[in-house]
């Protein structure tokens, strides 16, 4: 199970990279970044998983006393939460840039923004 998740995560990461490095439309590139992030998140969750266990929330199903043997690792889940939010912030900001770039040249083709070079 976790192997699948890990593999999928890696594949999604590479897919994101592919999008980032080949798409010419800036919006698509930004989407590429989201995909890339998603891949990372999947990988993190995959690392958190412990065979045949449940979410780290203690209620009547998960007794406080032997929670240690019932739950999966809460840490990566917490990290994922943080990572997602950060990803959100980054994406929002990139979209702002995209808007401004479009305002400047009325195009979203990354190749047409080469005023700075050498």
């Amino acid at each position: 199970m976790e192997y699948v998740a890990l593999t999928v995560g890696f594949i999604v990461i590479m897919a994101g990279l592919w999008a980032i490095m080949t798409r010419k439309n800036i919006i698509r590139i930004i989407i590429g970044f989201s995909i890339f992030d998603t891949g990372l998140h999947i990988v993190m969750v995959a690392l958190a998983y412990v065979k045949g266990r449940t979410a780290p929330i203690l209620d009547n199903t998960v007794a406080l006393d032997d929670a240690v043997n019932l739950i999966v690792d809460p840490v990566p889940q917490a990290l994922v939460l943080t990572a997602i939010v950060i990803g959100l912030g980054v994406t929002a900001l990139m979209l702002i840039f995209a808007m401004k770039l479009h305002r400047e040249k009325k195009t979203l083709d990354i190749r047409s923004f080469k005023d700075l070079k050498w």
Partner: protein
Amino acid sequence: MISPIHIITIGLGGAFALGFVSKKAKALTTSLMLVAIALMGTISGSWLFELLSGGTETMVYTAGFKPPYSINLLMGLNEALLTTMINFVGLLGGIYLFGNLKKAGSHAVMVFLVFIMGLNVIVMTRDAFNLFVFMEVVSIATAGLILLTETGKSVQAGFKYMMATGIVAGIFLLGVIFAYYFSGSLNIDDLAAANITAIKGGAVAVMMILVALVLELKPFPANGWALDVYEASDPGVAALISAASATAFYYVLFKVISIGNADWYNIIAIAGMITFVGSNLFGVKQDKARRLLGYSSVGQLGLLMAILGLKPYLGDKLEFIAITILVSHYLAKAGLFWLAGIIEQENIKDWAILRRKPIFLVLFGTFVFALIGFPPFPSFYGKWELILALSSAGQYYAIAFILIGSFLEGIYLFRWLGYAIKLDYTKLPEIKIEWNKVIPVAIFGVLIYVIGAYTGTQMSGLDSLCYGPLLMIPFLYAIDSLKVPIKNTIAILGVATFAARVLPGLYETDMLRFIFTFIFLVGGILTLIAGYAYKGKREGFYPVALLMFVGLALIIRASNTLEFFYGWEIMTAGSYFLIIRGKKSMPHGLSYMLFSIAGAYALLAGFGLSFAETPSIEISSLSAITSNITIIFSLLAIGFMTKTASLGLHIWLPGAHAEAESDVSPMVSAILLKAGVFGLMILMIAMGHSPEATNIGYVLGWLGAITALVGNLAAAFQEDAKRLLAYSSISQLGYILFALAMMSHLGWMTAMVYSINHFLYKAILFLTIGAVVMRVGTHYMYKMGGLIKNMPMAFVAVMIGIIALSGVPPLSGFAGKWLFYNAVLDVQWYFQGAIVFFSGIIAFLYLFKLIYSVFLGQLKDNLRHVKDISIWFAIPIYTLILGIMIFSAKPEWVLQPLGDMVSQWYPNSALSWDGGLATGPYGYWNGTGVMITVGIMFMALLGWLLLVSRKAVKVKQFNIVYSAEAPQRPETTHVSYNMFAGYNKALGWLVAPKITEFWDTMTDWVHSVAHYGRQLYSGNGQVYVTYVVAYILAIYFTMIF
């Protein structure tokens, strides 16, 4: 003590609280933000003070749990220092950006505050994931600040920046999470302890973390995005990125590198050196000011990376080196970016505008010299310790890389400085002064001197006298607005007092140093006297002149290589500014500086290697070297020969000396060149008589002989009087090198006599010709002529000068020739000797051309009414002539002490004195006798002629035959134009400018490499991302193979 955690409280709380302040009260908002930063600064500052005064570092635990269960932050000495630096530059940067922030409103202000806070946290935190979070905070804040001044370019740069950092952050996160998986902790110290690099996966995880951090430091070539940011964002922001962010991220790498294994140090060292050399190489071609600063920043970070990577070899020196160089970069680069913002000129050629407010020029120069690592700035000590440590560890490649990189940086920085000093600024607009922008620059400008001085006191082996005399310089700057006579008097008094203090003592103890101090200081006084001839203020002349003389004095009194190098660099800086003052001197100043830097680095490397041999920096310890002798001494010799302008390293000299001002030429020719001679003598004394020494001597001998020949030939074909003298200097220094290289009693006698003579007559000639040039307003000899009628004083001076120079008896020049013969036969260097003799004869060609074309022949119409040279020049000139006369009449007065002196190192071989009669191994010579005989004979014959032709009638100029009409270029028919044409046909090929061509080719090569290389930065953000990924892969595959 306030817990450092409250830096966050203040930073974030402040940011949130600003939301309440009315959107209208923008000034208030910004001021509050500054207050907040100031508070953060006080916290970190108080910690710095605490820890410096022996406090213990503290670990802050959050949520009341120890790591790894919860996040912790460390406030140690390094953290305290760096956070203080960050908050300080943050505060000043905030003041600098006050206007922009106010305009952008409270939200921008919040962003700024959070940016600084984030940097503080990433310095302090010890938790990998927390590091990731706040790195993201910082990079988002940075992206926001880039938008602060919104231009099309800044938006593009910002987007590229976000793309690059997006990838980097992702890789970092991936690394962290796997590191957690393999080690079971997120705490950096635990990660280091867990040593997960043992497992393959763990190694990859570590690699991802570290490579991400490296990428944050903009390694070449995956740094196009960074350059764009530096170029396009507001200078104030760029300053922060370069000073604050770079500092923080460097420290992050500094603390996280411990999770990697030993290989990582090498990888990072190599990455750093590649960056340092690469980006400085590409910078050479750059002419956009801020982008150039970007290249330089990236380069400096590369250097810092390399230093970190070299940790295993630097040992406990690491932190000193890293901090000194980091601080210099921090101050200088922030200052430069801020300057760029003040003067708002994109093209570096327009930086001449700085001269509208000279103080800005001073600041600019300060920062440039600090970047290159001149004394008294911290980076000087940093580089020194670095090279010493590396050579002790035998890291020769590292040394080579670092020195080459610094040299490349010197190329563009000094070209830039030259533009600022020389180019025309009248067409450029006024600088509009906004005090909130000027003050930060000024503060940093002062600070860099203060810290430099402080670092100096921390160095062992550098006594306070080394920067005591330097205090003269700021004083002279302070009074720079006064008229020449006052400043000149003060300067002379300064030099005189110094001379009066040192000379008598030296005369008793150390003849060699006495003689050179005499040449340097008394020569300095004499040449300064000529300065009275100048009208007006002559701004900026006296500080730099004194700078050079102080440097020379320091060289003399240096007891160890550090002091020597210190003085050497001071002297170089001063002479550079002196030389570049001339009207057309810009390119010559640059080439002088570049050769000097290269030479200085050769010296540095040499000293470093010798230190590695004998762990001591005492000059005396040079003689204790056992292995690598040839390399070390060759390096040192090359270093000194860049100053003595030996063949191959001479191309800077003619222009530099010829274009310099009339009284500067003698300073840099008659006096400055002797510094190189002094260095060579120190060196050879140290070399002693080892077989290697003899080999080096043999090579140097030939080099000197050929230099003498080529120099004289070239001089014979000059049309420009001062260039002629400059080439003559080259050849004279060739003689001296040759004589020194014999490394025998007579050889050194010859060398000393030549040094003294050259000082005397070259000073006379340059002063006189300079004075003449001031009167007639041209360097070209064929435009002069017949001046003997208007300037008898000058004529007599030149005649004495050339008789002495040519070595014709009875004047003192002959002493050198006579000793020279005995010496040559003594060491049996017949062929070299013959060449030198030949070149000595060739001297007659240019000497005749000089005196004939200037003073004899036809008087030109336009010069019919020129007056004789200024009395202020005449005084020193005739003082020197008096010197020559005494030396000629009583050579033994000088030669006998010299003999005793030289005997210390080279025992006297059969040169005995009987009154005025000197008897050498091969011949004899009675200076006094010859003088008297010739005198009597001359008088007798003159009397005879007076008797037989007493009726001779004086005729006017035109009472003689005339021929030839006036063609297109009148000078071509002038007899003294291309005077030795036949000779040129026969021997001209000897002086074809092969060497100049060689150096030109080198330059072109560097430029074209830079030109094609930098096209790597295509400007396409996507391509940059590809580079980043490729860089990661490159590191990975180098790591596994």
